[in-house]
């Protein structure tokens, strides 16, 4: 990211999460798709979320076949593609945000094919230059991640792997030993999307994962309001919110709605 910053991307992510670590506090990590509702609005919304208390960002790259996403994010990223968004645009947007003075760590969220097509080494190099600190790739489990991991290691960037309620003891061990930056814990079986409440088993699930690792555990899928963010904060190290923010952005006063929801989520996560 910053030419004079001696920290690696992994360290920046770890440090941003560590700042919020506490019994009832956690980092707040919004997901937002580049190019939605339009290119410029996506930039503006991420800037406003940075002001509203986001600790790090998951910046979405659109893909034609987003099989881990529910209807809200599917529709938003489809719109982004119709708006002509490309992988290069996603990188440029990160660069613009950096130039605008946003310092929070950035994770690029992309499906694997656009990265593979761009060229793994070239993508990581360009992403590092654009100001990214890590990658979240929902269809790349550690079983297939070696090439990406190696390139990330060299660049000091994080490759975040997932765990799910279906994960076995062995998978928890494998993922916690390989994931860098943090572990992305999917709170429910299913795709991304806002849900009325968080599942009861979540506390136990987080505890199981934590028992295995010092790597922070961030919870995503289904977190949609301040109360749920506070719930997550009481058990995990980070709360990731996507669909609820995308939904907020869809309305006529999208920018305001996103900003006020981001504030609510940050307050929930930060324990005040």
């Amino acid at each position, binding site marked *: 990211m910053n030419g004079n910053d001696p920290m690696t991307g992994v360290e920046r992510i770890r440090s941003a999460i560590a700042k919020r670590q506490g019994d009832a506090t956690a980092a707040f990590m919004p997901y937002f798709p580049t190019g939605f509702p339009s290119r410029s609005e996506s930039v503006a919304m991420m800037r406003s979320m940075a002001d509203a208390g986001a600790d790090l960002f998951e910046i979405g790259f659109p*893909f*034609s*076949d*987003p*099989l*881990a996403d*529910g209807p809200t994010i*599917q529709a938003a990223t*489809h719109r982004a*593609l119709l708006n002509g968004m*490309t*992988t*290069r645009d996603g990188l440029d947007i990160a660069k613009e945000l950096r130039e605008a003075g946003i310092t929070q760590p950035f994770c690029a969220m992309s499906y*694997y*094919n*656009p*990265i*593979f*097509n*761009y060229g793994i080494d070239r993508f990581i190099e360009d992403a590092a230059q654009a100001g990214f600190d890590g990658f979240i790739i*929902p*269809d*790349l*489990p550690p*079983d*297939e991640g070696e090439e990406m991991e190696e390139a990330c290691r060299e660049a000091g960037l994080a490759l975040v*792997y*997932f*765990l*799910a*309620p*279906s*994960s*076995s003891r062995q*998978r928890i061990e494998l*993922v916690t030993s390989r994931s860098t930056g943090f572990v992305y814990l*999917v709170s429910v*079986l*299913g*795709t991304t999307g806002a849900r009325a409440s968080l599942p009861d088993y979540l506390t136990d699930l987080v505890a199981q994962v934590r028992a295995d690792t010092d790597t922070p555990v961030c919870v995503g899928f289904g977190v949609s309001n301040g109360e749920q963010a506070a719930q997550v904060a009481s058990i995990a190290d980070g709360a990731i919110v996507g669909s609820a923010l995308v939904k907020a952005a869809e309305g006529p006063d999208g920018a305001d709605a996103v900003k006020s929801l981001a504030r609510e989520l940050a307050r929930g996560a930060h324990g005040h």
Partner: protein
Amino acid sequence: MVDNMQAIFTADDYGFHYPDSRGKFGPYGGKYVPETLIPALEELEEIHATAMQDTGFQDELNLLLETYVGRPTPLTHARRLTEHFGGPEIYLKREDLAHTGAHKINNALGQALMVKRILGKNRVVAETGAGQHGVATATACALLDMECVVYMGSVDMARQAPNVFRMQLLGAEVREVSSGSQTLKDAISEAIRDWVTNVPDTHYLLGSALGPHPYPVMVRNLQSVIGREARRQMLDPSTGPGRLPDVVVACVGGGSNAIGMFYPFLMDPGVRLMGVEAGGRGIESHEHASRFADPKLGRLGVLHGTRSYVLQDEDGQIALTHSISAGLDYASVGPEHALLRDRKRAEYFYCTDEQALAGFELLCRQEGIIPALESAHAVGWLPELMSEVSPDDLVLVSLSGRGDKDLDTVMAELPLGD
């Protein structure tokens, strides 16, 4: 008697064993899926291995294939088609005569029996393009008393309306998929989303030799009954010419009928294996589903859990495909085909919509067989094959399904009564 599935494991001395333990066919295959699905894939790998060894399971499946599906399907000597071309003798492997009218039932029944018997799962989701796999799955679920949900793109529902009704008659719920291109690829994505959500009690009954490991190998094994029977029928003078074919031809969408037909011939070096992709409106139009034939759009990529050739734009977004046949209208191809092509063990060609329609008509008139539009691609490509073969050669064509479902499409395209 239905040939035993064990045979393919003991007889494979082709020189290499794929997939490897990680589900790779050389550089292709693998499991590029969300972590949530990994346990289900591991479980599936286990039960597939168990089923392959379990003679009780094999016997039960074989009995159903024989007494319910109607296997072995016949080998037909296509005399008038042979005469028409004036070249090599042509034989047809009649998967169109299998129950439900296509080869899809071999896989659907095998997977359904496997998960019901070994896993105890009782809910099945499936995708369908032409509707043949959906109908086969709905049929297997009715037979085995399982709940069945089939995802189908809106475009495909419109062009395959009779199959939608068939699935409903069989007790399946057909869910319309109106996202993306509204065809097979979107139906697969939606079926995967359902599976991710309901994975503890749901099996995803994928219909072709693609997707994440172990699907490509599992579907190949279940479909290889086609090639095992055909090989035996060709060799047996009472059912065929008494020798192996020189050329085997099959259409390739995801590639399940082709791999099922090719696999038992892999170790017969004298047998040329030829796959025919959907050429749509021609390669230059970029409106087709020929993953191997279009150097601009067809490149190595990852779609729906597997690494293979994928039609995609320059930014890695999956391209919209076109074929007159819904069953071949898909942007990727089974990983084993990509490997066979690299190894030059199989060759791949394409047949345009127009050629496929000509093949459709030809088979109707010459042999009294109305083929599925998918299978019509194999027939429609035969004129091009003729320049490569001698009159002494034997050609075996996989007739993967029957064409009743396609009558509306064909009626709109072919003028009759002249």
